């Protein structure tokens, strides 16, 4: 695997849209060719090389390419957007849409990521060592197709509306989350190790939410369904089981109604 390191040297005055910074965008290119890839600062189109120092050549394919992003990229959006393979490491914190629409590969953000990370993610792995913003693994504005596959791990906290319209895949948040978890979801799983606020699984058609900490306010659309012992991430514990959202439509499987599941550690 070849490694390309891009280092922020000349920070943009406005926010930078860098949707070409992906193993797919870099594959088969030399450092000089990568410097010529387009980026948008406000309504101006310029080149990646104007802002970043680029060293190393990419591999022949996305799978053979690793990208290391260094320097202050707090004002850079769309890093790793639509990546399908390969690796990417963001050393610091990044702005909106990190790993959005990604379908494969591994993306590690060592700092925080802003909202809409992993929007409509289909596959691959996103690890955030810091905090994630709102709408993590959610659907794009207006769309009804959120995260459908892959895995997200947030070691810090996450914001509101995570997993909105999720249909598959898994989100794990080691810290706390804000309001609205897996709203409208039709599948997938979200594990929250810390505490939650309210509106978990609102209008949930199908899918699973597991909470280790507290739930500030339960939605009235959830019905207690006994207690179960679950093994989650290698931890065995007793959980209170709820089914819902009772106010939403649900599919039937072999004559039985399939509800969404909410588990809270006792």
């Amino acid at each position, binding site marked *: 695997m070849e490694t390309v390191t891009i280092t922020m040297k000349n920070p943009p005055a406005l926010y930078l849209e860098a949707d070409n910074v992906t193993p797919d965008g870099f594959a088969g290119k030399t450092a000089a060719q990568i410097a010529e890839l387009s980026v948008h600062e406000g309504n101006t189109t310029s080149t990646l090389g104007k802002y970043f120092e680029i060293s190393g050549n990419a591999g022949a394919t996305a799978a053979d390419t690793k990208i290391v992003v260094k320097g202050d990229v707090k004002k850079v959006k769309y890093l790793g957007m639509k990546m399908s393979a390969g690796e990417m490491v963001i050393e610091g914190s990044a702005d909106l849409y990190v790993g959005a629409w990604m379908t494969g590969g591994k993306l590690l953000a060592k700092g925080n990521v802003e909202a809409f990370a992993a929007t409509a993610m289909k596959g691959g792995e996103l690890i955030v060592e810091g905090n994630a913003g709102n709408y993590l693994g959610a*659907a*794009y*504005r*207006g*769309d*009804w197709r959120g995260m459908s596959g892959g895995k997200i791990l947030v070691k810090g906290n996450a914001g509101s509306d995570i997993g909105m319209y999720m249909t598959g895949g898994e989100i794990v948040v080691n810290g706390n989350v804000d309001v609205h978890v897996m709203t409208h979801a039709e599948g997938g799983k979200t594990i929250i190790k810390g505490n939650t606020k309210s509106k978990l699984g609102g209008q949930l058609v199908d899918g699973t939410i597991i909470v280790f900490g507290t739930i500030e306010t339960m939605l009235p659309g959830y019905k207690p369904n006994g207690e179960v012992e679950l093994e989650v991430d290698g931890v065995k514990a007793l959980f209170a089981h709820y089914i819902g959202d009772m106010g939403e*439509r649900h599919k039937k499987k072999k004559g039985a109604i399939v509800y969404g599941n909410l588990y809270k550690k006792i």
Partner: protein
Amino acid sequence: MSEYIIKNGHVFDPVQGINGDKKDIAIKDGKIVDKVGSGAKVIDASGKTVMAGAVEIHAHIAGPKVNLGRIYRPEDKLFSCTPTKGMERMGGGASIPTTFKTGYEYAKMGYTTAMEAAMPPMFARHVHEEIRDTPIIDEGAFPVFGNNWFVLEYLKNHEIENTAAYIAWLLRVTKGYAVKVVNPGGTEAWAWGLNCLSVNDPVPYFDITPAEIVKGLLEANEYLGLPHSMHIHPNNLGNPGCYQTTLDTLALAEGMKAKNKFGRESVMHLTHVQFHSYKGTNWGDFESGAKEITDYVNKNKNITIDTGNVTLDETTTMTADGPFEHHLTGLNNLKWANCDVELETAAGVVPYIYSPNISVCAIQWAIGLEIPLMMKDPMRCYITTDHPNAGPFTRYPRVIKWLMSKKARDTQINAFKHKDKVLSQTSIGSLDKELSLYELAQMTRAGPAKCLGLGGICGGLKPGMDADVAVYNFNPDKPVANPDDIETAFSRCAHVFKSGVEVVKNGEIVGTGNKRTLWVNVKVNDNPQVMRDINEKFIKYYSMTQANYEALGHHFVPNPYALEVDATHV
């Protein structure tokens, strides 16, 4: 204005009966002429296909429900935006493009005239503002009449003269083009939470049937002698078994003759027939009724139709058939928007994905192609996608490919997940017909222009007609190596002229032309009763005054082209 001569192209013009002959087309002062001077700019069209600019007879491209779709589907613009380029302004949207993109896309495919198929009269101003902002193409808009309180009250007593006077007034104040009917009576019934699924279901409160509404509007249309026939989306759209309702609706025009000075021969245009040609009793035994419908239309010369081809895309359905959209959101569970338009109509919007992996969608695709392939008279059947309902209009080149190539159809059939079901429930597999370029010109130019009463103005290349000309990179002398070449050729024109101005060159926009709004100005005898009824309804029921209702002046209709009709003699 510049003079042009388009030399050595293979010309297909059903208006003059020209079928692929090598012929020069001369343009001067915005019109087709016999000859031009030696200074005329020469366009070399050798090895290319030359046709008149195409005419879109039914699409939803301007107005409140289109805009509602744009507003509530930001995801439709995701990854479909085009930045400013040369003369083109930025655009976006796949199934509900922005006004600018709408104009550009039509022009690039060789379309120079398009009709907005459903204008809520109360929002005529909005419709005209969007038409104004859609570049290049001439446009008209059809106000909807089939659920209008005035019409329901007059026709309950079969008052044709009053209905006609009201139509004349409404076309004038809304700058409308034709009488459009959507789910007659059913949309009004929707205000009571009901629907009219047959031509005999009574409309609540008004106590009138869809059959009476349709018959009355057919008569009023011919009483006035409007350029276009009555244009109908009948009851019971999209339900298995609906073909019977369609046949019942078509039968209402039996024995009627067109009366007008515009050369139109039909009295009823039944739109997006694909959605109205379903047999079976449920989605399990759903099958094609294309044969029954086309058999009837082939026999009855006073009917015209358009296809409503399913293009197998993700799209946005939108119709004044409010109850249907509510039914649809219950089927696919996707977001639904609904709008009531006071005394006049309603609308609903729901996104829809025509998936090749779902047997119903694949059968709908087949029915849409069976209809034009089974029609004996291409002058009475026009290609549409009921944009954006069965698919975006930008897919016309693909529909043309399917119609012109059996190989392309077979490729698609073999790609369906439920191929066997498509073959057992329709006859698409046994249809060998491949549309000729002449028939294509009939279905997309000469036919719709004639049906709209525009046959003397556009849709042909006869000297004296508007110089709307499309030149395609398609050589009819050469065998088609790959059906996809047809799609490529019809996607982007080599040249397009709109009223004598070059607007497209090598597939790029090079001019914005002289866009006009087409409308119909009907003079009728003074009718104090209708004027009193209008004043009274505005005072009693409308949430706006008449002064705020009319679409007039330069702001709304900056470049009008009125078709004058004198109905005072009757």
